[in-house]
């Protein structure tokens, strides 16, 4: 069993969009004999890559859902999660990283470290995932892996060290020099499946010796045995690998490998590095929160004899019901076991246990400790923890960002309505960043997510997978409101129309604050009896959901109450709640409210000749350009642009740069909208009110 876990690797492949993750995964599956033919992303055969199993993924050439797959290499079991490269799907990347023990950071030999590489690197750091780097596309024009390695050090702060050197570059890229074994490796055969190991070409020898020296120096920092061996000039392959491994596991060293997945060069060496340098599950510390023990953090042991603890990290609804991807951290999960969902406290019986291979599945009898598998027919939400005993353990929750964009969606007919409802229930369970709300006034269903593409993909899935006809509204920006100055309020709620009366007076002031909401009670002398204070707070809190001016949710308000009055008979919790609502409305209008809009950090990567056009396109969208970074073959422009102006930007960018530029967008902050825009919003609001009345 111990041997089993030592030979298990859970790895993820993270990279900038179009760096070649899916192609690389496809080659890994081919060399590990999980597939027998190679299909490329947007390939001429029209089949599409194996990992992109959704129709939409194949069409767009992007990987949307991280498909888990299993393969074997040199007696090692490897679970691979392929992750999307687009920022809109970041939650998928976050979820994958949560359950992984090691990562491959794929970088493009031409593009180098791009904006999305920085995001995925930050995500890897957040979950302390040790990684190795693979510089792909060394066969492309303009490939410069050594420059990319330097960028890895300077831009991402990695202690990057070359493990290989290229033999030729661009069109002449033939193979790699392995600096550990000091051999040249060539990849021959129709699909590069035959590795030919030979002597290092003479012209590369001195450079190889120089880089090996650096490699030994760096690795020696993490192994005393290697330091001693280096001093005595007796460095063995085994010692060197041990030193590199120690450095990699401590996240203080990033070994860099090279290749071209598309041209079938370097993938087998990468697999060797995965087995030799990345950690097995028992080498990673995983914690859970023990709710029975004062929320204490406890360390989980990768032992099959311990009680089972597992995390459901991904849900998918397939033709045979809900499929729950699960990672077992402690103990084992067997078919027919009874397990507990620690969030709901419910007992569940495990039915089928399977191992996924993209869209194909293989039945297994158990998921061993540290491994990843999937269960059928388990009702749960993404992020739920399962345990074998009724213990209150929960794996640490994953970081889930708030959605920034909404879209109204309506089924065209009754049949579609049922399908849409099914689809939305499934998507909200699968993706915590995808939210569904309904507008009671317009009886519209609103879907919210992390970006235009994120929502577009879900709408397309509703159409294709559920065969439902839907009408989609214009994207809506999640505006907020805040106050800009202090304002007093003094409101009396009085009602005497038969029966028991209502009386409550609330006085104080509101002022701007950094936090979303704060309530301070400064009542002295019992002018508002203590039992009614919480009703006042509830009343104020209630007002934050919808402003009395523009009807957007309010943020950044500090409410201070310092006076009031009550009546011995007519005062009640309800009366003070109503008084607080009236008081808030009174104060809010005087506090100079303003609308805030989400501003996005937009990074465009473009060939330098289009820099002017890109800047102009951002400027036209009320964008504020922070700066430009010129890297010779491409340049990246960083800006802050209001989300409301970014709709349809990908089309504009494509046409103004001959399709050569791409952009990433993520939420930055909320900023006040200009007066003209708030006027327009006010008009739109009045118009929509009129329409809904009609």
């Amino acid at each position, binding site marked *: 069993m111990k041997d089993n876990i030592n030979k298990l690797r859970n790895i993820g492949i993270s990279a900038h969009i179009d760096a070649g993750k899916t192609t690389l995964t496809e080659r890994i599956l081919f060399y590990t004999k999980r597939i027998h033919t190679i299909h490329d992303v947007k390939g001429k055969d029209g089949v599409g890559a194996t990992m992109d199993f959704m129709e939409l993924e194949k069409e767009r050439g992007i990987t949307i859902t991280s498909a888990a797959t299993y393969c074997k290499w040199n007696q090692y079991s490897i679970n691979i999660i392929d992750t999307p490269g687009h920022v809109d799907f970041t939650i998928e990347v976050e979820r994958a990283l949560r359950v992984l023990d090691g990562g491959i950071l794929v970088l493009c030999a031409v593009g180098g470290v791009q904006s999305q590489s920085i995001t995925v690197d930050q995500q890897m750091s957040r979950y302390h995932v040790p990684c190795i780097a693979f510089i792909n596309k060394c066969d492309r024009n303009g490939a410069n892996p050594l420059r990319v390695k330097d960028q890895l050090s*300077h831009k991402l702060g990695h202690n990057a060290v070359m493990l290989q050197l290229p033999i030729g570059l661009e069109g002449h890229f033939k193979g790699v020099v392995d600096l550990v074994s000091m051999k040249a490796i060539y990849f021959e055969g129709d699909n590069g499946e035959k590795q030919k190991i030979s002597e290092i070409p003479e012209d590369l020898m001195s450079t190889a010796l120089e880089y090996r020296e650096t490699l030994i120096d760096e690795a020696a920092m993490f192994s005393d045995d290697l330091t001693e061996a280096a001093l005595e000039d007796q460095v063995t392959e085994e010692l060197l690998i041990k030193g590199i491994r120690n450095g990699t596991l401590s996240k203080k060293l990033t070994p860099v490998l090279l290749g071209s997945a598309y041209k079938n060069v370097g993938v087998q060496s990468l697999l060797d590095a995965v087995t030799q340098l990345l950690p097995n599950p028992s080498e990673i510390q995983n914690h859970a929160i023990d709710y029975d023990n004062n929320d204490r953090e406890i360390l989980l042991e990768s032992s099959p004899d311990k009680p089972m603890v597992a995390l459901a990290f991904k849900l998918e609804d397939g033709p045979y019901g809900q499929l729950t991807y699960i990672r077992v951290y402690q103990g084992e999960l067997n078919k027919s076991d009874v397990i507990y969902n620690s969030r709901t406290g419910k007992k569940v019986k495990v039915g089928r246990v399977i191992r996924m291979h993209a869209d194909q599945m293989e039945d297994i009898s158990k998921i061993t400790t540290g491994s990843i598998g999937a269960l059928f027919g388990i009702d749960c939400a993404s992020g739920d923890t399962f345990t074998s005993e009724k213990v209150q353990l929960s794996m640490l929750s994953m970081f889930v960002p708030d959605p920034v964009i909404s879209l109204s969606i309506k089924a065209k007919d009754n049949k579609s309505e049922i399908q849409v409802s099914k689809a939305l229930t499934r998507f909200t369970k699968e993706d915590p960043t995808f939210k569904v709300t309904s507008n009671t006034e317009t009886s519209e269903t609103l879907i919210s997510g992390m970006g235009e593409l994120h929502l577009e993909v879900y709408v397309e899935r509703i159409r294709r997978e559920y065969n439902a006809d839907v009408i989609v509204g214009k994207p809506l920006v999640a505006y907020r409101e805040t106050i800009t100055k202090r304002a007093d309020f003094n409101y009396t709620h009085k009602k005497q129309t038969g029966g028991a009366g209502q009386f409550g007076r609330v006085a104080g002031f509101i002022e701007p604050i950094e936090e979303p909401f704060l309530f301070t009670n400064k009542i002295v002398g019992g002018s508002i009896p203590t039992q009614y204070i919480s009703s006042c707070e509830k009343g104020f809190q209630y007002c934050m959901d919808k402003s009395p001016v523009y009807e957007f949710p309010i943020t950044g308000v500090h409410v201070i109450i310092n006076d009031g009055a009550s009546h011995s008979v007519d005062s009640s919790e309800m009366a003070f709640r109503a008084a607080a609502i009236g008081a808030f409305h009174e104060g809010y209008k005087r506090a100079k409210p303003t609308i805030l809009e989400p501003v996005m950090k937009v990074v465009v990567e473009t060939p330098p000749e289009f*820099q002017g056009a890109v800047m*102009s396109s951002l400027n036209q969208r009320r964008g*504020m350009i922070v700066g*430009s*970074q*010129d890297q010779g073959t491409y340049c990246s422009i960083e800006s802050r642009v209001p989300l409301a102006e970014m709709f349809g930007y990908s089309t504009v960018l494509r046409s103004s740069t001959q399709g050569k530029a791409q952009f990433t967008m993520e939420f930055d902050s909320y900023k006040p909208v200009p007066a003209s825009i708030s006027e327009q919003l006010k008009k739109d609001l009045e118009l929509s009110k009129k329409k809904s009345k009609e």
Partner: protein
Amino acid sequence: MNESNTNTLQKILNTIIEKKKDDGGFGAVIARAGVGKTALLVQIALYSLFEKKSVLHVSLKEPINKVCLWYDEVLTRIERVLKQSNVPSDIWDTILMHRMIMTFGENQFNTNTFRERLFDLTEQDIFYPQLIIVDGLMVDKENIAMFEELKKLAKELSVFIWFSIRSHRHEVSQISHFPPSLIPVTDLFDVTLQVIPKADKIDIELTSQIHFECTPDLLLNPETMLIQSVN
């Protein structure tokens, strides 16, 4: 450092920039590696930003986010020292509105590319710099022509350019304490701020072609890395 000597310093620097910008004025912060050239340049840029003047910060060594961090850091120090009394309340918005960062990868910077990028900004009404900061451009034999070209560009745009110039301990010129590599281009510069570490303090020597009635003695506060004048 207190409010009044910051004002004096700010006034001196802004006067130099105002008087010399039409001639394509050049200024240099000269110091050894690690003594605080970037912090001083950012401080100079912030003085202009306080007056809502547009600053183009060109960095040949740091990426955009690192340059932004320098501004955050130096401004926080200034705010702490001045207790926010002399710093405009909307300074963060002003910085975003009036600052543009341009960074260039190793060996990617040349006058033609820079001119092209600059005209991309001005011709499309995106940004008109009133002060340019160039951090990390080496002054050596090969680059003399580049400095001359930049002087022409500065004159053409009526803009003042501040440079960081790295000096070396072993190669101080006998005449002016300037690094010998700077001597061939000294004439191009209208003002220099030279950082001279001494046993117990760090002096800043201001050399200017403009005469001031009262030029304060300047020091670099090693705690804050800000320039301060001695009362």
